[in-house]
């Protein structure tokens, strides 16, 4: 067991250290620090999506809209209503959680693709409310002058580095929660639902309640990330609630690895930097990004972290027993592929690039 844990633990430590020293590495370049901070905020939202999609297998397309609701609550409350950031932030998390719970009561009556369609409609509804309800949301002119967090003792959040560490604190919390849930009965119930709802029922999982909790938690994470996004930028527009954002989170998960502990953060940071590198291409950057995603779905359907996990697991089982009858494959074979994980071949000879920092991270599936 210890030999198995070591490379994963090492990977997690490397990522943690990289985040801790990042401000030193980019000191004097506030723009780069802002990119890292934004990526970390997106990663928190991706952790939310990871709970409902990665663990539970339900594709929620309202995720970007929940992010937007969190951002707008912080934005509007701290400007038009002059609340303190901390109050607004708390209310934003609470409100998105409640919104997630309430919409889940209806949305989760649907299954598979219908759940995706329903939540996409919900996302559009929220987006339309934001761009149409001008008297409250300022529609296209957006919200500007959003407050920074008020200082706590010696912590002055107007310093971008301090704000960065605040975000990292929440990010670490999100990663830890994912780890704890994944390795508990609650997490095993969720993964059971992802694999096969019938099997989950037969071992006594209350499928309805479990999905409801996962969806509610995912909305809360999105709201939290949205609130941080608003305060970091100082300005938000309706694009912070758009469906594009949902697909962006989906992309982070797909690249990083759905249902893994470190996947969301690895995916968010890699894509953020990829976007930066390709910025000169503007919207043509998807021409580069598209093929990368296609290759990834074919050769590493469980993302970079999932691929590394499989790699470690297969190496271990090869060592443990001479002839494994087949490579350890993905998951979701019995279900109807609603998690969108693509084909189940998890082993391919090609090794993903740019993983030196992410080398061998986190724990695998169930």
């Amino acid at each position: 067991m210890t030999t198995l844990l070591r490379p994963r633990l090492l990977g997690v430590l490397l990522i943690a250290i990289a985040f801790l020293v990042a401000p030193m590495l980019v000191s004097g370049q506030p723009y780069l620090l802002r990119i890292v901070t934004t990526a970390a905020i997106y990663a928190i939202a991706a952790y939310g999506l990871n709970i409902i999609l990665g663990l539970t297998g339900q594709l929620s397309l309202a995720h970007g809209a929940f992010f937007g609701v969190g951002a707008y609550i912080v934005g509007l409350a701290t400007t038009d209503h002059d609340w303190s950031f901390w109050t607004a932030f708390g209310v934003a998390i609470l409100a998105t959680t409640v919104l997630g719970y309430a919409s889940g009561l209806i949305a989760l009556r649907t299954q598979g693709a219908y759940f995706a369609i329903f939540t996409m409609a919900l996302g559009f509804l929220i987006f339309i409310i934001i761009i149409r309800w001008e008297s409250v949301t300022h529609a296209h002119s957006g919200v500007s002058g959003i407050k920074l967090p008020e200082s706590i003792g010696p912590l002055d959040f107007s310093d971008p580095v301090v704000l960065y560490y605040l975000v990292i604190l929440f990010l670490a919390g999100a990663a830890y929660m994912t780890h704890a849930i994944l390795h508990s009965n609650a997490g095993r119930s969720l993964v059971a639902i992802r694999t096969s709802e019938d099997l989950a029922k037969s071992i006594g999982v209350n499928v309805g309640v479990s999905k409801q909790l996962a969806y509610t938690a995912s909305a809360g994470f999105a709201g939290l990330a949205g609130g941080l996004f608003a305060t970091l930028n100082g300005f938000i527009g309706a694009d912070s609630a758009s469906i594009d954002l949902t697909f962006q989170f989906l992309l982070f998960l797909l690249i990083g690895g759905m249902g893994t502990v470190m996947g969301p953060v690895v995916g968010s940071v890699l894509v953020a930097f990829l976007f930066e590198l390709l910025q000169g291409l503007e919207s043509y950057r998807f021409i580069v990004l598209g093929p990368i995603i296609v290759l990834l779905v074919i050769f590493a359907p469980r993302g970079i972290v999932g691929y590394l996990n499989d790699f470690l697991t297969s190496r271990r089982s090869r060592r443990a027993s001479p002839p494994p009858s087949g490579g350890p494959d993905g998951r979701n074979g019995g279900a109807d592929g609603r998690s969108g994980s693509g084909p189940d071949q998890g082993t391919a000879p090609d090794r993903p690039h740019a993983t030196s920092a992410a080398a061998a991270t986190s724990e695998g599936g169930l």
Partner: protein
Amino acid sequence: MLLEVRGLGKAFGGLHAVRDVDFDVPEGRVTAIIGPNGAGKSTLFNLLAGFYRPTAGTVTFDGKNITGMQPHQTVRAGIARTFQTTHLFEGASVLDNVRAACVVRSSSHALDAVLHTPRHRRDEKRSLDTSMSELEFVGVAHLRDEIASTLPQEAQKRISIAQALATEPRLLLLDEPAAGTNDEETEAFGSLIREIVARGVTVCLVEHKMSMVMNLADQIVVLDHGQRIAVGTPDDIRSNPLVIEAYLGADADTTGVTT
């Protein structure tokens, strides 16, 4: 009686898959449900386990009315089931497959896991112990770290029985436990089922292999076209003309019902 089924029925639209079925499952015994293909055996199991909601009748388990309960409630009440086609969590280890089934007997929830409370740690330890002892019981403990879906069919069937046992049932519903196994393996499953009964778990099984049914069952319930046409000991059933007719068609004069 551990389980009492009265007037149970399930109609899908106008089709009566199960109609007016009565039987009792005595505690500590093996009850087999047999019948030709399409007789409603699997539907009956789905009704007992709460996967389908009955359109008529009642199911009483241990004196408690469980008619129309959800599967997670019936599992909690003490009824576990396996599936006809082996269902396991793919990509997960054998141990994790069984450990997942300990959820139902645990009292800790997500918040306990996040805060790492003593209750969570106690539950985790208990889950591990239960899973390991069930894996040992069905004889696949040495495969604990293998990926379950890569193992041979026979091992997978044993794992799903361990999974069902890990929910700590009083009644175990086995849907064709010996389907797709050879004679030797069928024999082995027979003795495994006897050991399960010896532990005090009542077994109710659907099976096509008559040799196994006749050897194991204390009581046999025969279904045909969704209706119960006979109930009795293996000897009663073997010589029951209605059963012979259902299996072999009218005018058959053989006594041994074999498939």
